[in-house]
């Protein structure tokens, strides 16, 4: 018994140490985001909270336009999350509950896109979007990401695990596929929907390379590239304001993650274990 207790104290100690190490960069960033320039450049470093918290966050939000960037990121992340979830669900519905010619071809056609990360297509994608005259628009940031194999296969897998008799029953009752999706499948799919929403929102919120290339107007730029411009002139950088920007930028995905991480595990991670 005693051995067990000392073992558990050791485990707690080790876990607390690891948690602290993982957390410390963000804790430091938060503390520094409250300090004035003088407090940051002071030697030895000031480790307590500073006196500039309101000022720093205000400056980041207004003078460095983080308010605008946050709004833009929020618009594109929400639009992609909602639209991609719906489109993936419809495709999953077609693949599981319908029989149609060339079904295998369609399946592999979608499957192969797993091998096409957007990052390696940026050259061609840039000229395509420019040819459409869509540079500097939300459409440029949203459209290329509206469909993905991950979303389709997540729903396909989940729908396949639902008893087929439900669809029979629905058909006998005279319900069409859309009605069946709405009143039977969706209520049974919240874990999958939440998991996909979390993956997509964080993925879109953290977009960096593509917006950096395609958006040349501050009014349409996203938060990650906004952060980049804050650090551009290092020598004169007010790091307290930059850290305030980093904290602001990480909050929305962090909140979504904290709210949905259990559904994410049930709807996505455990799917890898079956």
């Amino acid at each position, binding site marked *: 018994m005693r051995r067990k207790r000392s073992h558990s104290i050791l485990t707690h100690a080790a876990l607390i140490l690891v948690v602290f190490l993982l957390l410390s960069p963000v804790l430091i960033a938060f503390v520094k985001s409250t300090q004035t320039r003088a407090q940051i450049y002071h030697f030895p470093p000031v480790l307590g909270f500073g006196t500039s918290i309101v000022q720093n966050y205000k400056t980041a939000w207004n003078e460095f336009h983080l308010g605008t960037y946050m709004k833009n990121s929020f618009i594109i992340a929400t639009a992609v999350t909602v639209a991609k979830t719906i489109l993936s669900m419809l495709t999953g519905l077609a693949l599981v509950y319908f029989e*149609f010619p060339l079904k295998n071809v369609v399946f592999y056609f979608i499957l192969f896109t797993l091998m096409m990360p957007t990052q390696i297509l940026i050259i061609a994608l840039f000229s395509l979007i420019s040819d459409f005259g869509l540079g500097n628009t939300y459409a440029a940031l949203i459209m290329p990401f509206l469909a993905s194999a991950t979303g389709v296969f997540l729903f*396909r897998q989940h729908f*396949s695990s639902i008893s087929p008799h439900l669809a029979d029953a629905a058909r006998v009752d005279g319900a069409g596929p859309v009605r069946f999706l709405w009143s039977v499948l969706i209520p049974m799919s919240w874990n999958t929907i939440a998991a996909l929403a979390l993956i997509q929102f964080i993925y879109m919120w953290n977009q960096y390379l593509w917006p950096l290339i395609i958006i040349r107007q501050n009014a349409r730029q996203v938060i990650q590239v906004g952060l980049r411009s804050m650090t551009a002139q290092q020598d004169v950088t007010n790091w307290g304001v930059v850290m305030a920007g980093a904290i602001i930028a990480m909050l929305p995905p962090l909140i979504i993650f904290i709210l949905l991480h259990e559904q994410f595990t049930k709807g996505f991670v455990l799917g*890898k274990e079956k």
Partner: protein
Amino acid sequence: MHQARFKGRLIPFLFMAPTLAILVLFLYYPVFQTFKLSLYRVAFLGLRKKFIGFANFVDLFKSSAYLHTVLITLLIAGAIVVIGLSVSLAISVLANQKVRGARVYRLLLIWPYALSPAVAGVIWLFMFSPGFGIVNYLLSITVHIEPNWLGDPYLAVILIIVVSIWKNIGYNVVFYLAALQNVNADVLEAAAIDGAGPWRRFRSITFALLSPMTFFLLITNITYAFFDIFGTVDIMTKGGPIDGTNVMIYNLYRDGFQYYKTGFASAQSVILFVGVIILTIIQFRTSGKRVYYGGA
């Protein structure tokens, strides 16, 4: 896959049409264009194009600078994958112990999943700044050194690796913890009764049972190290110093969008694309479909 339940041949295509259209327009067509452009020399802004066959590829393979870029990429990716996965597995085993507050610990270990490579880069850039960064202060009062982290190519590579590992630990731990929870406790107990020590039990039972998950994480971590690292590199080093952290995706961006060598950059895209294809084939050969999307 069970039998289809609804009738109609056109309706399913109606449901799939938006998804398929997006995939054709924004993935398949750009892939085709990338291959095509890689065979051309394109003048600034694409005004003039000249077919040059495989000359871009020949230039790339003959360039010692590009070879250096490839080696740096492999080095950084290898370190992120091997060290990152080992650390993540150790943390997951620790977090899988039955202690009070396990759920809270779990959340406190996986949250970095939500961080972006750029945010990670900004915070660490500040922490490791010479002069006023907290890390050099701690090093100077303990071991009396103040390395110039971003001024030395080797140190910059190490820094990029450490930041990237830190940022990806949350992702790895989510998956490893889920896999660990499915490791049957009875088997471990039986092995313990048979006299297998903790290390032996871990190596021949837990680690073996985790191998499909390790393989899945191997692939996702390689992709992360090759592509998502861009944000961290761009914020922290811009590929420097003296091209020390100029990884393949960064070199591609520079050639494509700073030097406007469209054809040359497209050839680099093709090389990366071939890499992804090889990786995918290995993945399907080794573990079938279950790695990517479970038992579907």
